């Protein structure tokens, strides 16, 4: 190295050195260099699995797998205690959906029907294209009233595209079936949306529990 180099040049040189990072080949030892032991090891592992390990294959149609509780399968529309569709047609799921597979058409709740008297808005239609859906669960996240949930139903099949477009009745029937079977209990329950959509309110005598369930 020449002594005439200025400190700046030295620094530049240092920096230059640092710009390229060499990834050294791993040093191999004698045994590794022979290859054969490693090959033998590999073969031994393979053979061990072939002959001594238990097969983990599940015979699917006969053996049904048990899905974890957060599995994201076919959607359902939940019902409230009175059997009405829980959805208030806020379009949050439709807005959140990255695949644009949800289509809601809202309508004022039938005011002359006493069953609906304490509800303002309800989904006249609620359609999900299960083929377009990517099962990301955003709709479930977005739902302020926990009306839409993804069930653990994974084996969704159909003979036509039209068949895979689920309407409100179909989605509600998914709820009826899954909740009846007890497989997919309503997982989240954040309570009422507010007085405009739900009449029942907590009584004043007991302060609401801290943390979850608080509204307002």
């Amino acid at each position, binding site marked *: 190295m020449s002594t005439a180099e200025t400190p700046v040049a030295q620094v530049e040189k240092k920096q230059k050195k640092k710009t390229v990072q060499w990834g050294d080949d791993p040093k191999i030892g004698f045994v590794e260099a*022979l290859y054969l032991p490693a090959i033998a090891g590999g073969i031994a592992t393979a053979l061990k*699995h072939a002959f001594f390990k238990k*097969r983990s294959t599940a015979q699917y149609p006969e053996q049904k797998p048990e899905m974890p509780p957060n599995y994201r399968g076919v959607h359902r529309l939940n019902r409230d205690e009175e059997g009405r569709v829980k959805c208030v047609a806020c379009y949050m799921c439709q807005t959140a959906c990255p695949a644009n597979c949800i289509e809601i058409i809202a309508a004022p709740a039938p005011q002359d029907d006493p069953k609906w008297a304490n509800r303002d808005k309800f989904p006249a239609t609620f359609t999900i294209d299960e083929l377009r859906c990517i099962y990301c669960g955003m709709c479930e996240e977005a739902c302020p009233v926990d009306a839409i949930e993804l069930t653990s139903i994974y084996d969704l099949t159909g003979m036509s595209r039209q068949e895979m477009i689920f309407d409100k009745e179909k989605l509600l029937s998914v709820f009826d079936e899954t909740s009846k079977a007890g497989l997919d209990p309503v997982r989240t329950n954040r309570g009422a949306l507010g007085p405009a959509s739900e009449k029942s309110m907590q009584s004043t005598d007991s302060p609401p529990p801290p943390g979850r369930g608080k509204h307002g």
Partner: protein
Amino acid sequence: MNWYEIWAELWPTLIAIGIILAVVPVVGLYATFVERKLAAAVQDRLGPNRVGPFGLFQAIADGIKIFLKEQIIPSHVHTFIYMLAPCISLMTAMFALAVLPYGPTPVNYFGGLRFIVMPGLDISLLIMFAISSLSAYGIILGGWASNNKYSLYGAIRSCAQFISYEIPMGLSVIGVILVAGSMNIETIVASQGSGDGISGWNLWWQPLALIIFFTSALAETNRLPFDLPECEQELVGGFHTEYGGIKFVLFFLAEYTHVVTVSFLTTLLFFGGWHFPGVPSEVTASYGILALQMLVLLVKVCGVVCFIMLLRWALPRFRFDQLMGLAWKGLIPLAMLNLVFLAVFESLGWHRWPLAVLSVLLFVAAGYWSAWQSQSFVRKASVT
């Protein structure tokens, strides 16, 4: 030659060709089945088990399915060569089988029935190599005609790979030729015969040549760990990216035919062919002996095939520079040295047994040198 002689020569040949043409595709199909089963076993799965007992008809179902698939020819390919490439590929693979005996040729049984298409050919091994080199042709044509950069990459890789591994393969087999004194595979097999049926195998005094040969042959078949021309992670599908349906099957079949060829060669050249302890080596034996010998050969071949399939799940794929390095820096020098030792022994007429020891020593020395090389290279790199 009169017509009768021609006919007498022709019909066993046609039968032999017929047998090969009939059996090889079926073997190919079932090889896939076996491979899937084997893969499943290694991966703790069951493998195909739905079609037929134990899934045995899976291969047939697959075959039917793939034959019925729609033929798609991409618009951007060179159609003629694109169509031709898989045919060439399979053709050359099948052609190589012409010189491989699948049994000891009986003399005058049924007026000349034999288990080889080209019997008594003195340069059968040479033909074998000449033809098998052609298999690169189909791949290169396919890769080029596909008009797809990944395909072309695969083709070029396979080209380099073939050229590189031809050399160690050839060198390692020269030893066998020297020992047998013939390039006729039948003679080579016969030369391995001995009283006990096992001590004459080339394996014993040329273990190194076996390793080199087998490694190189594996590389020639494009199978793991040498499947660089088609490795999915790097090149989508390599040379057959643009192929589907029956055309793809032809490539596939060619690959399996290669596997079978290689297994045959390995068995015939190093594992004593149809010789087996307790099975008389004489050709004069009865039908029973003949059948037994064929069975022995078949079992050995199947063993090698299974070993090749097992290797697929035991070893990771080479990097391309490693692949090249292995051939040029490892196998070729080793094969040369091995050949030199063998030539010396043969020319001086020494007993061959020390060759086995020498082979092992040579291998160990190469390993040690390789390790030292690696260490010193790393050291040097860190200095600069």
